[in-house]
């Protein structure tokens, strides 16, 4: 093959300047294999060239943090000698092409990140964004993605315990599929990925390598092989959860037996990225014999082997006298294990094939040579997004509005989706999907800590994943703050104290000034909120260039937060529990109509900004609710989120299977200061009743309990007793309007998504 040049580099996604830098750092123009590898490691996906500087501003330290960003997954200490590792990642582009396999391999990928650090995965969560379900394509993507997540998670025996789904027109052409996973490990099993020890062997184990995901690099194929071979370079990767389940057990057994020096999964950019990262982190070199890599297909070229994204593979570094034991462990699990190279002190990655050197690159240039770019943010002066189509008449009365909201795609019950996920395997799920705002998972004796004794405290983990692109689109800074607040609120509702968070940033093209502005403001908001609530970010992922023909997606930061509960027997539920208990609205909740779900149904434009959030007041409310739940004083707790107070009350009724009678006090809610900010089209006084019932904002909770318990909360956060649990209908009397609906009607309205899964 002729030496590739600038044209090839451009075809592979490098810029002219980047290609020049590659040539300079490499010392000569790279050959085909080398160029393929540079182009991958210098891509946005691997090099984070448009986001790394921003990510550095996020808080990453905290008392519980054991491993921060930079490893395959972050980890926090949960006591008892155990750590919890977790991470969220997106698989947006593959899912838009083939939703089932895209989502399935997304789950497979995030699980590998968890067991690569030595943790046994205990839960998966998913966060999905599609266009409106009225479009056939959205339904197809939704159906495929949900089935794919279920297929992978169910088959591998990790429960899928939570998630979120939103439908918004800007995701119509670029859907988002995020998967989060968490796992537990005894602290001493925690593993890093830095290669070490020149002379040690490099062992590749797991599935054979095929031509998966080579698509983009196929410009490098040698001409004579290219006839017909193009067809054989599928861009769709097929997940094999069975292979991964063996890989998982094999990896953990290798770690338990202390047979490996370091471990790394193969994800995007396959062997190139895995080897590059391991070498760079360990400041060593690697010699790789490409011919040793077990192949699924004949006639693969060296560059194909190096860039293949075949799933279900891992790479580890092993001391020479342990190699036999490692291979034996692989055989026991019916997993291929092959020595493909060795660690060197050369600081270079050297590739051989057919007895010849086919690539030789300085690790520094390959992994860290890519320039990092500054963004050029510019706030837009015109609305970036079209107003949604109106689906609800403004003349509808409050009861009708409530039913319409409960039936709207963003608020309808997710049961038809999550019933396709095994949420129970591993027997640790205390709070199942639909029962509360966060999932609660027991830490059991089998994990090396905890207890199975029902009579004593049962420590548990709580986890939630959240994002609200529409609100972030309205105000990238405060919308992102609100995402962190909501996630923390969800943990508070089950009584958990946050230990750390992971974030995924899905945005449009960062080279566009308005997208750069969204990204910059959003990361600033995430950072400020995490600092204010003392939640360090220990890992995450960035997905840029999510643009459709109609423009960028809504800016979508997604936060996954993990917390700890000393005793799962006290885990909070959102459903009203007992007739006669009092209902209260708790926290510094000040609703507005801007960017709320009702405004969407009315077809309103997004407002230009959302009201500020007082994070100190929010933190006090979170602590009060958390304490109320943990102490057993509160019988239910639920945060006020999409759909506002009325929807939150309805959800408490539905989850508890019992009604409530509520009366909102006159004078509530207070007028919004600085009118216009965050409100829809000025303050039409006719809108006040809708603002009270359906307006949205951060920091509000609906709780139930005894009057004394509610009183006790009032010492640290605002508490307004608004009603009583009981009956089989929900009544909300408010100055200027009234809602009355039977539980059966609420249930029917809320079940509207069933129709999407015939």
């Amino acid at each position, binding site marked *: 093959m002729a030496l590739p040049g600038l044209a090839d580099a451009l075809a592979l996604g490098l810029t002219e300047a980047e290609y020049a830098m590659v040539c300079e750092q490499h010392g000569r123009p790279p050959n085909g294999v080398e160029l393929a590898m540079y182009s991958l490691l210098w891509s946005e996906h691997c090099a984070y060239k448009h986001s790394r500087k921003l990510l550095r501003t996020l808080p990453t330290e905290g008392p519980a943090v054991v491993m921060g960003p930079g490893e395959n997954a972050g980890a926090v200490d949960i006591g008892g000698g155990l750590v919890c590792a977790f991470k969220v990642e997106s698989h947006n582009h593959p899912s838009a*092409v*083939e939703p089932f396999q895209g989502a399935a391999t997304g789950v497979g990928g995030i699980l590998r990140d968890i067991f690569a650090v030595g943790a046994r995965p205990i839960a998966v969560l998913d966060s999905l964004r599609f266009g409106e379900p009225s479009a056939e394509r959205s339904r197809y993507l939704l159906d495929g993605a949900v089935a794919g997540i279920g297929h992978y998670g169910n088959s591998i025996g990790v429960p899928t315990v939570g998630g979120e789904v939103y439908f918004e027109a800007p995701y119509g052409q670029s859907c988002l599929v995020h998967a989060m996973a968490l796992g537990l490990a005894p602290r001493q099993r925690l593993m890093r990925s830095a290669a070490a020890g020149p002379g040690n062997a490099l062992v590749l184990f797991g599935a054979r390598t095929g031509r998966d995901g080579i698509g983009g690099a196929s410009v490098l194929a040698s001409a004579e092989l290219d006839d017909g071979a193009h*067809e054989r370079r*599928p861009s*769709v990767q097929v997940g*094999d959860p069975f*292979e991964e389940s063996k890989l998982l057990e094999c990896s953990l057994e290798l770690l338990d037996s202390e047979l490996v020096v370091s471990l790394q999964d193969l994800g995007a950019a396959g062997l190139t990225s895995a080897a590059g990262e391991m070498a760079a982190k360990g400041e060593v070199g690697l010699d790789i014999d490409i011919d040793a890599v077990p192949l699924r297909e004949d006639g693969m070229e060296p560059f194909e082997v190096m860039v293949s994204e075949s799933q279900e593979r891992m790479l580890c570094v092993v001391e020479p006298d342990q190699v036999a034991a490692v291979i034996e462990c692989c055989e026991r699990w019916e997993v291929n294990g092959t020595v493909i190279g060795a660690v060197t002190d050369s600081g270079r990655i050297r590739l051989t094939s057919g007895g010849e050197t086919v690539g030789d690159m300085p690790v520094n240039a390959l992994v860290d040579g890519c320039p990092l770019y500054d963004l050029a943010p510019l706030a837009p002066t015109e609305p970036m997004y079209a107003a949604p189509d109106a689906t609800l008449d403004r003349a509808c009365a409050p009861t009708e509005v409530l039913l319409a909201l409960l039936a709207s795609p963003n608020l309808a019950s997710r049961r038809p989706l999550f019933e396709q996920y095994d949420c129970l395997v591993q027997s640790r799920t205390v709070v199942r999907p639909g029962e509360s705002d966060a999932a609660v998972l027991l830490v059991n004796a089998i994990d090396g800590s905890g207890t199975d004794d029902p009579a004593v405290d049962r420590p548990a983990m709580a986890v939630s994943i959240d994002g609200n692109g529409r609100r972030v689109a309205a105000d990238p800074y405060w919308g992102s703050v609100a995402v962190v607040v909501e996630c923390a609120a969800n943990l508070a509702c089950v009584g958990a104290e946050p230990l750390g968070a992971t974030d995924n940033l899905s945005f449009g093209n960062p080279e566009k000034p308005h997208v750069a502005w969204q990204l910059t403001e959003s990361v600033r908001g995430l950072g400020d909120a995490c600092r204010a609530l003392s939640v360090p970010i220990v890992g995450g992922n960035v997905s840029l260039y999510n643009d459709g023909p109609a423009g960028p997606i809504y800016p979508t930061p997604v936060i996954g937060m993990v917390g700890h509960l000393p005793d799962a027997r006290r885990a909070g539920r959102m459903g009203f529990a007992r007739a006669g208990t009092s209902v209260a609205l708790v926290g510094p909740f000040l609703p507005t109509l801007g960017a709320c779900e009702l405004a969407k149904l009315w077809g309103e434009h997004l407002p230009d900004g959302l009201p500020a959030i007082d994070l100190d007041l929010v933190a006090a409310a979170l602590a009060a609710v958390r304490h109320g739940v943990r102490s057993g004083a509160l019988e239910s707790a639920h945060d006020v989120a999409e759909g506002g107070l009325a929807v939150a009350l309805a959800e408490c009724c539905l989850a508890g299977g019992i009604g409530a009678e509520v009366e909102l006090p006159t004078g509530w809610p207070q007028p919004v200061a600085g009118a216009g900010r965050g409100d829809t089209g000025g303050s039409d006084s006719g809108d006040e009743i809708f603002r009270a019932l359906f307006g949205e904002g951060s920091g509000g909770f609906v709780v139930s309990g005894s009057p004394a318990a509610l009183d006790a909360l009032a010492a640290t956060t605002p508490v307004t007793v608004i009603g009583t649990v009981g009956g089989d209908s929900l009544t909300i009397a408010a100055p200027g309007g009234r809602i009355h609906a039977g539980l059966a009607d609420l249930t029917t309205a809320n079940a509207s998504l069933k129709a999407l899964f015939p």
Partner: protein
Amino acid sequence: MRARVLIRPKAGILDPQGQAVERALPALGFDGVEHVHVGRLVELDVGDAGQLDGMCQRLLANPLIEEYEVQLLDGQTGTPSP
């Protein structure tokens, strides 16, 4: 007219089912088996055979990862669906 559609994983696409079967057969005493692929079989009565390709493209197969082959079974008709 009775038609049969054979749907199989495209060449180069991972076929975990085929792999699993291939690995299982020797243990049952069946040796020398290779290149096992598992796919789907759809049999149906169509009024207009010209529609079959469209059906495969849009519903029966996933052209991104599967290839299909249509066979017309002259003279035969299907057994009724229960």
